[in-house]
């Protein structure tokens, strides 16, 4: 087996500087948005007493879920022993940590009291799945850092297999925890259900691979390093498989809800007459994020693999954001059911669909999370040897 050579990318090229400057500007804008929201208070956002988690949380959850899935590539190479994926292991670990950092940054910066992060890290209510997630997320950084160490330092090779297995199990537990943040909420008809945990795992597989593929394609394109078509075909077919799994759990979730007479209202809201939520569900989540990538993955439409991988990954990302938006915000837009079967009205927005209009500040904060992740990846591949140099297709095909 040919030994993979990893090399840092060249820093301080015009493109590199432009990218750093652009991402830096985005992050600065996000920080300005945070300052505005924190200083004025959350009344300047679209979030209210009815829709308490908004666009920042959509981006944060997307990034966190994608983070756990991005580590998948490394796991396929190490835990499942698939050789073609092994050169991608280091980059996979970096992308995973970067995405998680971006997602957590957005989440923390949107807190009502972000200055109390130290309190959150020292006071734990162990009955809260949220508290468990804080521990799981922090631990993820440690676990993946150790995993990367075993991959990048030849003296740590003997810990490679246990580190890989540990990272794989950790991310499954982490994503189960993230899904359970919503699944454990008995109050919310849109998602008080056990299927949220496996749904989130399926989502993580799809989003993580999509983001990783885009990072890989972008890196190969800008550094001029070779990236074989066969690798890309593998990745895009795998993406198709993950998208199919995601669609399966979505279908299962909604079919089950439809079967419960009492949940007919919220299902009609999401699937039929929820306005923007219905549009995002069918158009964004199912078509753009589901059916189209499936078609591209398994039939190709006659396009080159590089193009197919790019389009499919972009579509899955867009569909993913739509899916998380429908879940988090659509789920809050539907009113709480204090009196099942009755019509309720009050001065506190009971009994009616809750409006939510994201403001610029929230959007900029969410995009800032993406920028943080991108900047961490960029700096990582510049400073350390994450990116393989020889991903071209081998002359003879071993398999």
């Amino acid at each position, binding site marked *: 087996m040919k030994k993979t050579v990893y090399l840092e990318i060249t820093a301080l090229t015009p493109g590199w500087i432009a990218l750093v400057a652009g991402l830096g500007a985005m992050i600065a804008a996000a920080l300005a948005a945070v300052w505005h929201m924190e200083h004025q208070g959350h009344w300047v956002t679209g979030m209210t007493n009815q829709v308490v988690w908004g666009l920042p949380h959509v981006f944060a959850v997307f990034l966190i879920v994608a983070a756990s899935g991005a580590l998948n590539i490394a796991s396929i190479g190490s835990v499942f022993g698939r050789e073609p994926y092994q050169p991608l292991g280091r980059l996979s670990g970096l992308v995973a940590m970067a995405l998680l950092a971006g997602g957590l940054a957005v989440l923390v910066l949107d807190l009502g009291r972000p200055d109390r992060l130290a309190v*959150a890290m020292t006071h734990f209510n162990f009955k*809260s799945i949220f508290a468990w997630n804080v521990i799981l997320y922090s631990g993820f950084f440690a676990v993946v850092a150790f995993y990367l160490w075993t991959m990048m330092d030849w003296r740590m090779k003997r810990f490679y297999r246990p580190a890989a297995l540990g990272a794989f199990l950790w991310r499954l537990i982490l994503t189960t925890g993230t899904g359970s943040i919503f699944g454990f909420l008995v109050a919310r008809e849109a998602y008080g259900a056990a299927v949220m945990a496996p749904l989130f795992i399926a989502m993580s597989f799809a989003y993580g691979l999509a983001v990783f593929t885009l990072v890989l394609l972008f890196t190969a394109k800008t550094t001029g390093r070779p990236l074989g078509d066969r690798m890309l075909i593998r990745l895009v077919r795998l993406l198709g498989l993950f998208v199919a799994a995601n669609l399966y759990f979505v279908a299962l979730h909604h079919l089950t809800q439809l079967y419960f007479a009492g949940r007919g209202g919220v299902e009609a809201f999401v699937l039929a007459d929820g306005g923007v939520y219905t549009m995002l569900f069918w158009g964004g989540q199912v078509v753009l994020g589901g059916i189209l990538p499936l078609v591209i993955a398994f039939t190709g439409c006659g396009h080159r693999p590089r193009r197919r991988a790019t389009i499919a990954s972009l579509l899955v990302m867009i569909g993913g954001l739509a899916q998380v938006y429908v879940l988090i915000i659509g789920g809050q837009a539907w009113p709480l059911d204090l009196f099942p079967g009755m019509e309720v009205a009050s001065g506190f927005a*009971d009994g009616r669909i809750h409006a939510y209009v994201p403001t610029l500040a929230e959007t900029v904060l969410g995009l800032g999370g993406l920028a943080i992740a991108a900047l961490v990846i960029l700096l990582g591949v510049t400073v350390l040897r994450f990116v393989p140099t020889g991903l071209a297709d081998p002359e003879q095909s071993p398999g």
Partner: protein
Amino acid sequence: MTEISRRQVVLASGAVLVVAASAAAAAPRGQGQPASATRHWGLLIDTAKCDDGCTVCVKACKAEMGLAGHDRPATDPQYVRKLTVTDPATGHRHSLPVMCQHCDKPACVDVCPTGASMKRADGIVLVDRHICIGCRYCMMACPYKARSFAHEEQTGQKPYLPRGKGTVEGCTLCVHRIDAGGEPVCVEACAAKAKGAMLFGDLKDPDSAIAQRVAKEATTRIRADLGLLPSVRYQGI
């Protein structure tokens, strides 16, 4: 979380003995005595006496708690609200006040990551705003929409109810009045200015008016099926 000193344990045991021995229903708790699990505060609301347009309890709460709004109904805090419930099949309509139900198994306490959302020994559910990080997960979890988020800088707080920007808040069952031997201001206002639909008392005290009524008359709780065991009981819903 809180470390309880030996002194407080002794005081607490002393308090338990004292309370068990006397049959004081709502006497002010002595200085230095912790809240005790021998009491369980609750409310009984007879919605038959609740007029549709009446908002006496809501106004009294807002005045007592210093909840000056900013004319932004979507983000202004509201601890108690009047709900109008209409049966679409029959057209029957009635009205009732809904506040934090002070559940015995509160979902908000389960989900709070820092333990800021807490249940006091005597059943009152509170937000410890010293350690609330403003994540709003409790607001996602509460089936009764009991909690509000302080969306802006607060001024003119009442000394007995500190509240501030970026933390979550809700009905405290007027804990500052209860600890001094009084009753919640909504109950008081309803009795003084409306039809006296609300009754407050110690559900664990067999001699209290509320305990005797809930033993004799049928009462229900909102969304009892969720199993959260609210301390607020209703009649006529």
